[in-house]
């Protein structure tokens, strides 16, 4: 390619793009700096992207002295792992059944699934259902209600539709049943799409807080990082009372709920950053495919 001359327009574009990068990244860097800064010092203001009075006290508070925040951290991880695995098993199995056009109830099951994308009972009936099922304050409330999403199943199914069926045919001749074909042949071939959906589910599980708020508020063992963060936000809004310090020994003068809030924010963001390269690879290709089609 031959070199082009840089015009004013190119310079404007470059500056604009740098501006976008700065306004996107600055808040994260600012919060990281505050989370690593002495809380009393932070209150004086003026912290930007570098801590002034460096301390790990806010993180020590979460991982050391505060049992509830540590619990919340592990519960966030647990629900992400269990929720993702359960969701993957359910969606993949259902997608396989739906990819089998010779299945006698294919049409019926597909219809029941797709219809859920257009109608939903709404907040109150769903709440009453969860209550009737006894899932209030139960770990199951993190898993069951979001086990299957029609959208995910359809993505997996369209991937399966494009697999050649020769392998499957030969397995059938060898006398393998449908379940064996599914686990031995279909699943290994579908690993790329399974990875995509797994990321999708993991991000959703890691980020959710409303189900804790609505269904598991009074069970302390079920609290999650996102919910603890939400409580601090909510509390700072309503009064100066502070939830985080209720049963915690605050390291004297080094930390306060506002600074702990920043540390929780960072801890809740880091896993997203860690899987970001993968997210980018799979999500964007998936999304672009969908976009071009529609």
């Amino acid at each position, binding site marked *: 390619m031959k070199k082009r001359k840089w*015009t004013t*327009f*190119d310079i404007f*574009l470059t500056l604009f*793009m740098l501006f*976008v*990068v700065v306004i*996107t990244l*600055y*808040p994260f860097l*600012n*919060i990281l700096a505050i989370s690593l800064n002495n809380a009393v010092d932070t209150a004086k203001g003026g912290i930007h992207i570098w801590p002034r009075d460096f301390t790990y006290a806010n993180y020590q508070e979460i991982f050391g002295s505060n049992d509830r925040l540590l619990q919340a951290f592990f519960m966030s991880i647990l629900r992400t792992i269990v929720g993702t695995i359960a969701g993957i098993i359910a969606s993949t*199995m*259902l997608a396989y*059944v739906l*990819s*089998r*056009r010779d299945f*006698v109830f294919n049409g019926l*099951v597909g219809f*029941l699934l797709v219809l859920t994308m257009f*109608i939903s*009972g709404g*907040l*109150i*009936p*769903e*709440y*009453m*259902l969860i209550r009737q099922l006894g899932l209030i304050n139960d770990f199951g409330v993190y898993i*069951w209600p979001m*086990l*299957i999403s029609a*959208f995910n199943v359809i993505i997996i199914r369209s991937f*399966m*539709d494009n697999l050649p*069926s020769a392998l*499957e045919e030969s397995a059938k001749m060898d006398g393998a049943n*449908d*379940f064996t074909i*599914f686990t031995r042949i279909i699943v290994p071939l579908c690993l790329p799409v399974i990875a995509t959906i797994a990321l999708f589910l993991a991000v959703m599980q*890691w*980020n*959710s807080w*409303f189900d804790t708020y609505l269904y598991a508020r009074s069970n302390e063992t079920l609290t999650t990082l*996102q919910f603890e*963060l939400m409580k601090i*936000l909510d509390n700072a*809004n*309503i009064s100066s009372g502070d939830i985080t310090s209720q049963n915690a020994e605050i390291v004297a003068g080094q930390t306060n709920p506002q600074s702990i*809030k920043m540390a929780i*924010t960072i801890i809740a963001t880091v896993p997203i950053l860690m899987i*970001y390269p993968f*997210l*980018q690879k799979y999500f964007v290709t998936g999304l672009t495919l*969908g*976009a*071009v*089609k*529609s």
Partner: protein
Amino acid sequence: MSRINNAAEAQPNLPESNTPVHTKVKPGFPMRKGKKPSKKPGQKGFWNRMSKQKALLLMSFPFVIWLVIFKYIPVAGWVMAFQDYKAQFSIFDQEWVGFKHFKDLFNEPMFYRALENTLGMGILSLVFGTLFAIAFALLLNEVRFLTLKKWTQTISYLPHFVSWVIVANIVITMLSPEGIVNNLLVSIGLLDSPINFMAKPDMFWGIVTAADVWKETGWNAIIYLAAMAGVDPQLYEAAKVDGASRWRQMWHITLPSIRPVIIVLLILNIGNLINIGFEKQMLLGNNIVAEKALVIDLYALDYGIGMFRYSFGTAIGIFKSVISIILILICNGFAKRIGEGRVF
């Protein structure tokens, strides 16, 4: 907001048409698609096939049960809106009250405030979300320095993946009296002293919209960028020969080329205008701005669950669904009329 997801939801009817061509080319390698029941049709064939598909039946049965319980029972719960639901009786022994709850709802001033807030913030997010995404995509598409283009795009959709709890925390921190926004405004002389943005009811809609734009612009731009990548380069060459500036190329070539995508996404988003959810409003709101933050879902939550008025809350949910369906039908009809093809 899951604009993009919504956009992609329109896709289910598409995948059907992928493979037949391929099947014709290689008859020896039948695709899964083309597989037809090999036995003769008819009742006998049906039972025969069913008995051979025990594994498939077992694999789908639990999920059908799941769909019925978690997706269809709540829809059946709509009958509660026409009853005076009391928790001590079963749903079959409730007193029927007809449209009482809907009448109550329409006589409640709070409901109109919730509706106004929902539509207000919905329209603001729709307009600014779309404009910023298109503008960002247009500009990014013009960047010739590929490393910069790639990095900017990658960074721009990072906020999409973090939760609203985190974004709310970021927004509140940045807008606090000690935050960067106040610092900047004071130092360039636009403000005399820092103001507490989060305590200004009149600013609440704007703050929610700005937060939404910050979080989703990069993500929403992806779909437009993909559409722009498909524009025929010859068009630009021809324009260059005619001496068109890059602004004119953007305006006369790029924008018209992505028009169908813009219209489809607009239609999907208008259909979801009332389904803006409540996360942003709940997390960014506080007592001082409550009257501007109350949206329909929060209203249903406060009255339906907070005050145990389950029937009333269900009626709110039904109202929302009905409005949503009407909006989708109107937009769909409109799209058909202007000849951009129906979405559904």
